[in-house]
């Protein structure tokens, strides 16, 4: 657990952080968000003493950070910044090995640990001998995360780590970051200026403005009961839509209302099956249940007859995608039903536009009811 007690930081005459009190639970992701200059990064850096507070105290597991030697403290806390934080003259291997070597680990143990970490951040072991300049932005960010996790710290501080990554890769990184956190369960403090990122990744969000804590709560609590106008503006007008980011597709998977077929299913039988059903298509699965394509019954312009059209690479939703991502995939592909797969490509069911719509309507009603009570 991390406790910030009456933390104040002044730079000359300006107060960057004013009397901040915050308790961060073990094993959770807490997002610090606010406009630039609100004090979020300053607060983060006070935890590993890159910046010393003017007054107040910070406790990690009831021990004051001021009592610890700064260098030792930092080696016990993971620190991730934008991809630029990798040392360009070190290989991926040497970058990850920095902290274990500072801690004088045995080289064999370091080697094992690095293989384990590369696997965790889904990078092939062949990446170990590459240099940062040879990697893409997303790959660098994975290495940065691996480096921060190298000595297995309990606490991880992340300062806008995905800020320089393009939107598409950022979404991918978000998904794998959440998957990694499911495995490692670290206490993570994550600074961002992107509200969507905060909603997607955070369990709790601390909203700051002008060096003060405006609201600190669980994500859906903030979405449903914003403290004041500032928070409302930060969340934007589409709060009910944003709330969809909290819902995972896996909770909305439906097991009926669709057809499946094996790879070797007879075309004629399949056509009849589709004609006699409510749907226009069937999902093709291999013997291990992995989605291999989709066959749709379409009227051929040439012959005027109904024919099966095979799509070997249909749009799919990952079961860990949130509803916003599922919805945008539906809108982009023009489908009202999409197949859902797990991380190994196995078909687990479908998600329907109508269920997402129902979720939004429900959230709206909840908000109105709460509003009426006030």
């Amino acid at each position, binding site marked *: 657990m991390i406790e910030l007690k009456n933390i104040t930081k002044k730079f000359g005459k300006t107060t960057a952080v004013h009397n901040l009190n915050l308790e961060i639970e073990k094993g959770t992701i807490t997002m610090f968000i606010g406009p630039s200059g609100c004090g979020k990064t300053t607060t983060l*850096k006070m935890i*590993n003493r*890159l910046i010393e507070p003017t007054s107040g105290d910070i406790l990690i597991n009831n021990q004051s950070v001021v009592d610890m030697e700064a*260098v*030792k*403290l*930092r*080696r016990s806390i*993971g*620190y991730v*910044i*934008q991809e*630029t*934080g*990798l*040392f*360009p*003259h*070190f*290989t991926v291997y040497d970058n990850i090995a*920095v*902290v274990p070597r*500072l801690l004088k680990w045995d080289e064999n143990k370091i080697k094992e640990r690095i293989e384990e970490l590369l696997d965790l951040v889904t990078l092939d072991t062949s990446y170990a001998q590459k*240099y*940062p*300049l*040879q990697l893409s932005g997303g790959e660098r960010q994975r290495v940065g995360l691996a*480096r*921060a996790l190298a000595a297995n710290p309990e606490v991880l*501080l992340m300062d806008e780590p995905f800020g320089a990554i393009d939107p598409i890769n950022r979404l991918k990184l978000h998904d794998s970051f959440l998957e990694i956190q499911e495995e490692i369960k670290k206490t993570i403090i994550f600074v961002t200026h992107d509200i969507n990122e905060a909603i997607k990744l955070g369990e709790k969000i601390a909203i700051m403005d002008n060096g003060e804590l405006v609201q600190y709560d669980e994500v859906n609590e903030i979405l449903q009961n914003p403290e004041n106008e500032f928070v409302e503006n930060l969340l934007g007008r589409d709060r009910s839509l944003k709330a969809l980011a909290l819902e995972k597709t896996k909770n909305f998977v439906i097991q009926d209302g669709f057809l499946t077929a094996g790879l070797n299913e007879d075309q004629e039988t399949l056509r009849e099956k589709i004609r006699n059903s409510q749907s226009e298509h069937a999902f093709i699965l291999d013997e291990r249940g992995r989605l291999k394509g989709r066959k749709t019954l379409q009227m051929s312009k040439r012959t005027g007859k109904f024919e099966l059209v095979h799509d070997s690479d249909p749009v799919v939703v990952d079961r860990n995608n949130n509803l916003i991502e599922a919805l945008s995939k539906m809108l982009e592909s023009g489908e009202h039903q999409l197949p859902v797969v797990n991380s190994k490509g196995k078909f687990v069911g479908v998600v329907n536009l109508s269920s997402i719509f129902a979720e939004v309507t429900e959230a709206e009603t909840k908000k109105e009811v709460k509003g009426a009570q006030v």
Partner: protein
Amino acid sequence: MEKILAYIAKNQYLVFTATWQHWYLFAVSTLFAILIGLFIGIFVTGEGREKIGRLVLTITGAAQAVPSIAVVALVFIFVGIGFTPAIIALIIYSLVPIVFNTTSGLLSISAKLIEAARGIGLTNSQILWKIKLPIAIPVIMAGIRSAATINIGTATVAAVIGGGGLGDLIFTGLRLQRTEIILIGTFLAAIIAILVDTLIALLEKVVTPKGLHISR
């Protein structure tokens, strides 16, 4: 050509001594310039001294425009003539590019990178030796290289204040109006310059970390 060979044959000892002296002037002054220059460059870019670093950059940037003969003349005024003043003049003159490049190389490393290093628990000296110097080494080496080659040229001018070396030959040739002596001096200085430049270029390649000049 014949005249040149004849002169060398007759004055073997003189030519050899001048070349050796020249080499000695160059080597000693460059070595000191590197040591002092690195020290100054590292010092003025230390933690919290970035402002001094930028000031030094401005000063050394401008100082590169000062002609070598002016430095030699100034040293003559304050220190006098002889071998030591010549060495001093050479050190001062070749310090400039080394300090300039070391400072600019170290200052150009992104503050984010240094913060990352500090944030994961490197001490100040570890940051200097493991991060800053290896990354700045190509720029520092370029400074040393240009200082060294310029230094060989400047060493000929140092003959004016009694430094000896190939400058002695050149000035003798000028005084006696004997082209072959001038040519011998110039030619030998040029050979040393090319040799030194090639050597340092090789060294530059060896010491530059692989990750810095690699591409995707």
